[in-house]
Structure formats: structure tokens, C-alpha cells
């Protein structure tokens, strides 16, 4: 199925944007304004729909005119493109959008032709599927790990790197003991937060060695 690669689904939605020549602010400008104010880190609405690996919203103003001898042509409407890469199936994802981020969905999609709102899930899903365009080819470098899998792996990676450095010169019994504590701590670590730059995980221990430049070179 072209929209799917392994366990990742690639959804592409083109929602035609309303045009109202008499409005003070066009619908597309209004969408852009909402998007400009939307946080992009762990406060992002897509962090809440936490099966989202990567997602983007793009107002496509028109097609591109590449120059003569091609013909110049224009779209009648602008389109809001929603490109998202997530775990699981489409229905569940759309339902989560309604459950968890209905205000943001409304704020953006209310400017689109025929948007039924989020009061009735089935109508919302039907609308989105109407706007869906089939992905012709979808490439996913890692297509068998969920967002949580990946975040936990990144958390472990950071913790392991620090563990290795800290325990490098210790005797085996000591390392084994530290390892047991480490695995416990890692297991109890707060779950990593999607969208956050930087790692959530066990607190980094201070191993900073300060090399003062005024120290001499005597051994």
C-alpha cells in the first residue's frame, strides 16, 4: 500500500482554502497567522498526538510556473497541505486529532472549503479522507519503530554514553553494581517527551574536569 511503509503511515492531505474577496484578512493569511503562533517543540499539538514522528503544514499558494515553453496556469484555490508521518492506522490518528487537539484543528481547518468541524468524528474523518491524496511512493529510513520506541532509544543512548564514560576505569564488580543501579534508574526515568529538543532521562552526573590554562606542564 503506497501510503504505508512498515509500521509508518504517510498521510498527505490537500485541503482547499476558502477565498473571500471581501474579507479583511484572507483565509490563507489567517491560517498562516495561526501556524506562526503554534509552538513547534514539546508544546506542539502534534506532541499531543504522540504517534506523530514528523508533521508539517504548508499553505500552497499556487502551482509553479517553470518558464517558457511551458504554459502558465493557476489554481483556483490555495491548498493547505498536511504532510504527516505517524504510527498506526489512519482512522485512529484522525480520531486522536479530534480527541486531543480539536481546538487547533478547528483554528486551522475552519478556513477550508467544506470543513465540517470536529463535533462529529465520522464527518471529520470523511472530510479528511476526501482531501487525502494517495502517496505514490513513500520512503521511511526507519519504518519499524514507534515514536515512543525511538524516544526511549535516544534516552537510553544518551544515558549509556554517559555510563560508559563514568565507569570506564572501575573494577568489574563495581561496574556490575553501577550497571544494576543504572538499569533501575533508566527503567524509572520519566518517559521522554516528544518534540523536546534535548534529552529527557536520568540526570547527568558531573564529570567535568576543568583544565585551567594557567597550570604548568610539569608532570
Amino acid at each position, binding site marked *: 500500500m503506497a501510503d504505508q511503509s512498515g509500521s509508518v503511515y504517510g498521510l498527505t492531505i490537500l485541503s482547499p482554502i476558502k477565498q473571500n474577496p471581501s474579507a479583511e484578512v484572507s483565509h490563507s493569511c489567517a491560517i498562516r497567522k495561526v501556524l506562526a503562533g503554534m509552538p513547534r517543540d514539546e508544546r506542539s499539538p502534534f506532541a499531543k498526538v504522540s504517534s506523530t514522528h514528523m508533521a508539517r503544514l504548508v499553505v500552497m499558494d499556487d502551482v509553479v510556473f517553470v518558464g517558457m515553453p511551458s504554459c502558465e496556469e493557476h489554481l483556483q484555490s490555495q491548498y493547505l497541505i498536511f504532510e504527516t508521518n505517524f504510527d498506526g492506522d489512519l482512522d485512529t490518528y484522525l480520531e486522536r486529532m479530534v480527541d486531543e487537539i480539536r481546538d487547533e484543528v478547528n483554528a486551522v481547518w475552519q478556513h477550508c472549503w467544506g470543513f465540517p468541524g470536529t463535533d462529529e468524528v465520522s464527518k471529520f474523518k470523511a472530510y479528511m479522507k476526501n482531501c487525502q491524496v494517495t502517496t505514490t511512493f513513500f520512503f521511511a529510513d526507519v519504518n519499524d519503530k514507534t515514536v515512543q520506541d525511538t524516544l526511549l532509544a535516544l534516552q537510553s543512548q544518551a544515558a549509556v554514553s554517559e555510563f560508559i564514560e563514568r565507569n570506564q576505569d572501575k573494577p568489574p564488580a563495581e561496574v556490575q553494581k553501577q550497571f544494576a543501579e543504572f538499569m533501575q534508574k533508566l527503567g524509572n526515568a520519566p518517559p521522554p517527551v516528544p518534540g523536546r529538543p534535548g534529552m529527557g532521562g536520568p540526570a547527568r552526573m558531573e564529570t567535568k*574536569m576543568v*583544565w585551567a*590554562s594557567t597550570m604548568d606542564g610539569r608532570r
Partner: protein
Amino acid sequence: MSRLDTTDIQGFVLRGYALPFARYLFLNIDDAQRGRHLIGYVTKHVTTGEHWDAGKPDWTLNIAFTHPGLVHLGLPDTSLLTFPVEFFQGMKARGEILNDTGKNAPNNWDPMWRDGRIDLWLAVNSKTKEMLDGRCADLEELVSKTGGTKIAGTQDAGALRIDGQWSTKEHFGYTDGFGNPDYLGVERDTQPGQGKLMPDGTWAPLATGELLLGYADEAGELPVAPVPHLLANNGTFMVYRKLHENVATFRRYLEEKGQLYKGGKEKLASKFIGRWRDGTPVELSPNAPDTQIVKDKQKNVNFTFGNDLNGTRCPIGAHVRRTNPRDAFGFNGRLVNRRRITRRGLPYGSYVPEDQLVRDEDERGIIFMALNASLFRQFEFVQQQWVEYGNDARTGNDKDILLGNHEERDKYTIQGTADWNNPPFVCGGLPHFVELRGGDYFFLPSMTALRMIAAGTVDPR
């Protein structure tokens, strides 16, 4: 391709002079016309790339300009505006891209670089100190006689004298000077491994346009160059960086970690760079230095990483591997061919033997000079993506251990084997071994272009 007109190209571009003494004079140009007179006089003595039939000259002279320098010499706007953007901005303004922040930021540079505006670089290399002083005194006299320019500062550099001999080592003790690329048309003692890797495993020279403007580069295009052609052709761009070396810190770090590393101090030092301190490539000889290999021109640059993708011989983050990955990324090394640079640097400051007291704050380091047709695509790329970052080398954010502008969490991993005598080893708590103290981007014109600049006859189409 047709042979290069070596008499039109500055000698510094085509060869490393291997003369032990050097001094760089940095000038401000205050008056365009008198500045051009100075250029005119100097150009008569500039060393070209012509073949040295009578042996090495006693001294050499070369000249280069920053963009403000060209502005102050009165070049026409169209020429000035067609120089590449990064040259126009200058190295200081590109600091964020190069990660010249924190300790390496301009406010920590030498006053000449931090506060001043450098227009012109005059480089004298010579066989003896007396000749160096003599030639520089002549130049200083010329400057005061012609007027319109002044010397903002100078920088001495030169080969280190170790055990009574001239050495190609730098202050950390590493033997330097290997691996400058071969270019099509540039006559040189070719060694396998200097050029680009071919599908059959042999080495071929790089396209001339990777070094010189006006020639096709590795992408089959002409590098970005100013108009008119005569201003650009046979010229090149140089990055000049004064890299202060914290020798005391380095020695102490190496000593301390060398006691913990199973292979010992010298092997640890070799793993930082990818060469033993005597120059033996670690990829060819990971367990011991080997003078035979160092002396063998067929071998000392001739290696690939394709059979060492896990870094067991040469760590994946080692300096030579970061800056010239060869075939480490696959695709027969094709991703690397447009990222090569020619290095012409020299150490500065006096050498202190390992068993003697040395201080970080003394003036000691390397004057790093690299030549390339495109600063953006070559030097800047290597600096930003391969030295100050490690995604391509698969070291995440971990940087080049010696050059990197380290942050708190940075570390250097030396890959090992499942053998207690050679386990993986992590070097943490990385100090700043090297600190940037100044520099800029320069344009080294051809002899033709120099004469045009001096005569004020640069005429864009």
C-alpha cells in the same frame, strides 16, 4: 587538458616552499592610488609557480587581498559584487557557520584581528632569519616610501627546530604535511592516496577547478568567480586562521589519559589524529609506528577506510578520517571529492621539548592556511560539518578532538576490540586544545590579475 601557465600562478598556490622561516605582514590600504603603486612594485618580486631550474630560491614573496582590501584599491563595483558571498562577508562575519563561538569568538582574538580591518597579506618565506629580516625591512621601507598603506601587524611563523634539526612537526608533536591533494595539471611528486579514489582502487588527480578559478571543478562546472575572467583565472581563495595551541593542557591530558588507555600514551596520541606522531598512518599500522611506511611515498598517504568501517584501526572520529573520509561513506569516495583543501600552514612560536616546562598562555600554535576554489563548498563545509560536527562520521555531535570547540558533553570515542588489551575507550572532559585567535579570507590573484589591479585596469564586462 592544456598545461597550466605556471608563471601566471603565484608560487604559494602550487607548492609548499619548505623554507624554514616565514613572516606575514598585514596591511591597511588608506589610499587607493598609492596602494596600487605599492602593489605594482611588489608584483615585480612576487614568486610565481615557475619551475625552479636553479634550485630553491633563497626567499619568496606572495600577496593576497581581503574583500575590503579590494574595495580600498578601487576595483569596480561589478567586480566586487561578483565575488562569492562568503569572501565578501569575511571570516569574522561567518563565525556562526564555522562555530567560532565561545572561546573561539572574535572577542577573544588578537587585537589586530579583533579590532582591525586587514586589507592585504604579504608573505615572505626564506632560508635564513637574516634574509627574512632583510626582505621584510625592504618591504617596510617600500610601504613608508609609497605611502597610502600601513602595516597593521605582523606574524612570524616557521618550522620547529627539534634536536638541532628542522622538523615538520607541530607543537603537539605530530608530524604534519601529509596528504595535500593532487590536481590535474599541477606538476608535483605524486603519491598514491593524494588524489581522488577511482572505482578500480587507483588514485587520480582532482579537477583543477577544485584549486584554481577558471577551470572545471569536480562537479563539471566553473567555481563561482568574480568578473572579468582575467581577474579570477588562475587565482584562488585562502583561509588564514591563527590556531593557538594549549600545549601544556595537551601534554597533561595525554599523560593522564595515556596512563588509563591500555595501548599507552603514544598509541592514544595516534588515535586522536589517525597518524602516529612520527607520521605513520594508523590505518596501515594501528599497533606501532613504522618508519618504513613513513618514508615510503607509495605508502604513507595510500590507504582507505572501506575495510575499517567500525573504526577498529583508525577511529571513526579521528582527525585525518574526519577531514578526508576517502571511501568511509561508501559510493567510492565520490561524496568527498569536492571537499578537499590544500594546506600550506606553518607552526609559530618556539618548540619546547616534552620533558620541559611549557605554558598554555605562551604564543605557540599553527598558522593554518588552506587554499581552495570555493571557501563555502570546501573549507567552510569541512569545518562546519566534519570538524565541528560529526553526523557524517557517525559521531553525532562529537567533534574533532583537537580542533573542536568543545561543549560540556562532548567526548571522543576510540573504537577497540573485544580484547582487554584493546577495549573501546572514551575520552571525556575535553578541554580546548586549540583556540582560534584570528584570521580571515583572502584572494590570491594570478600575476595577470595583480598587474591589472596595480594598474587600475580591472574592467568588468
